[in-house]
């Protein structure tokens, strides 16, 4: 009843609304059936969890463009199947794997949420795995499997940048999308 009086609390609550919705959804999925009792108890538990274990608010990236999101998800599924099959083939074929490489890629986004999505999806899809990330300089270090020459390294770098572009187009703010355009960068880290 007195929620309006506590302005900071209400502000924080609005910031955490997506998290609340997600927690309620998970609760209902865990029960497996939909009912009012599940919904209400889910809301109560979600509120309890977010109040007892507060997280820093996630800022930015609150928008979601339908078409680029579909494109991101579609490519993600295709890449997931492709890279899964490729690594599976590399494990069973007699010759094993070639040499691998650790590459550092200069990213262009500057949002915590977007960088998180990029890093998560990079670990799953284009044959790469995140080792380290320099938040200040926006560089990400990846281990890539099976590279034969420097051409392969550059191809991997390009695919990382493509993945970043898809994520930003799907979830980023207009400024962040605009930041993609001028940087026809090669993704190399300026030394």
């Amino acid at each position, binding site marked *: 009843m007195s929620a309006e009086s506590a302005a900071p609390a209400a502000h924080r609550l609005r910031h955490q609304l997506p998290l609340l919705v997600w927690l309620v959804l998970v609760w209902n999925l865990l*029960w497996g059936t939909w009912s009012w009792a599940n919904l209400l108890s889910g809301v109560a538990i979600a509120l309890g969890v977010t109040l007892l274990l507060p997280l820093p608010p996630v800022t930015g990236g609150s928008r979601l463009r339908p078409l680029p999101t579909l494109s991101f998800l579609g490519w993600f599924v295709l890449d997931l*199947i492709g*890279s899964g099959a490729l*690594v599976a083939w590399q494990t*069973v074929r007699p010759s094993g794997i070639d040499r691998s490489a*650790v590459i*550092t890629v200069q990213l262009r986004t500057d949002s915590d949420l977007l960088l998180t999505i990029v890093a998560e999806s990079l670990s*799953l899809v284009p044959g790469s*795995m995140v080792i380290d990330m*320099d938040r200040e300089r926006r560089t990400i270090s990846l281990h890539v499997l099976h590279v034969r020459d420097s051409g392969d390294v550059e191809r991997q770098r390009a695919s990382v940048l493509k993945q970043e572009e898809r994520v930003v187009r799907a979830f980023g703010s207009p400024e962040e999308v605009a930041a993609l355009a001028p940087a026809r960068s090669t993704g190399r880290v300026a030394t």
Partner: protein
Amino acid sequence: MSVLEVARDVLAVALLLAGTFLCLTAGLGLLRFPDVLARMHAGTKPQVLGVLLVMVGAAIRLQGWSATWMLLLVAVFQMLTAPVSAHMVSRVAYRRRHVRRDRLLVDELRTGGGGAGDRVYKGDEPADAPPEEPATALAESREEDGRAENGRAEDGVR
């Protein structure tokens, strides 16, 4: 049993078998790949795809929505958590130098970022234990750095 049901069962069985085969290759990769970093690849990609295929196959075969929702949750959390754990393991492995450098074509994290040189005594690696024999470790590190810069090993000795 109608043709449709048979087709559905065949599809479900094919997905389940493909998924279990991918999980098997993930286990094989853990054995066959040379170092931790490569092994984490095997532990994430084929394994996640395998679990997803098993989930889809089970969702086709199982009756009732409640099981399907549970499978969906398993799939989502698998995709959310597998990259994070793989990242943590490989990050620690890299910092503790459990890396087969002879199998690396390039290592830009080492030769690039912030002044190429030996990294033995740098203070920015909290997980890096001090070497037991500093003199030999320093010499080895310089040698490796020299090799990474295309054989300019002479610079490193100085």
